[in-house]
């Protein structure tokens, strides 16, 4: 089976990147793809508590909670991106694995396909 890494790199409501990433993760998982999700750069902001109604957007981050039901259990967050933004694991709304840059590169290189959404 092919493995797919999806990297989220932008803030939650910058365009449609958040929603379209979730759509892609769930669709790929439905089609039997082994999917890993990475949050890097400003993408880590997607993992904070959100109030999307304030900006008339849908609450796409709710779908993060559904990932495990689609067998999407490999969720990684870039340690450096978090610390650069003054954030830590306790700020995040879902359970993730925090990884350093070396580990991040190593993980990405283990996937057949890598897609970056920003």
């Amino acid at each position: 089976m092919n493995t797919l890494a999806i990297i989220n790199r932008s803030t939650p409501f910058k365009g449609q990147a958040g929603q379209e990433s979730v759509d892609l993760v769930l669709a790929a998982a439905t089609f039997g793809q082994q999917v890993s999700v990475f949050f890097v750069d400003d993408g880590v902001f997607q993992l904070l508590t959100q109030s999307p109604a304030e900006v008339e957007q849908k609450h796409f981050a709710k779908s993060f909670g559904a990932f495990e039901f689609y067998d999407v259990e490999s969720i990684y967050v870039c340690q450096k991106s978090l610390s650069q933004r003054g954030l830590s694991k306790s700020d995040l709304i879902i359970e993730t694995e925090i990884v350093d840059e070396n580990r991040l590169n190593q993980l990405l290189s283990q996937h057949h396909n890598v897609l970056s959404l920003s």
Partner: protein
Amino acid sequence: MLKHLSERWGVFVLGGSNLATISIIVTSPALDSQGAYSALRFIQATIEKGHSVNGVFFYQAGVTVANGFQTVLSDELALYEKWQDLAQQHKIPLQVCVTAANRRGVISHEDAQQDKNRHDHNLVSPFQSVGIGELVAMLNESDKSIQF
């Protein structure tokens, strides 16, 4: 991550004797970035080197490449026509995610008919309106994928 990507790229370019089947994913907008043009040039180079491209999938802002209403001045690059020519010459499927496209006003004849107030459509052959599952199918039938 850039290092990772350049390694992927490097392996592909230098390994000229190993012919590969490549999937292309375009998420850059048609006009406001160089991504869609780079993708086109990359595909041409890929084919010249003897590799094959099993499909192009347009997602996120990349769907705007498929907007058939794009109208450029006569002395400007006609990117839309270049994609048409590429698909015709090399029989490469150009697949457009229907949900991402509809959000951005890129609508097929079939979808336009769902709305009686809509009188025209701009997503036509060789571009195909497909579900996102087609991306997974495309990736499963290639050796490598490259995103622009």
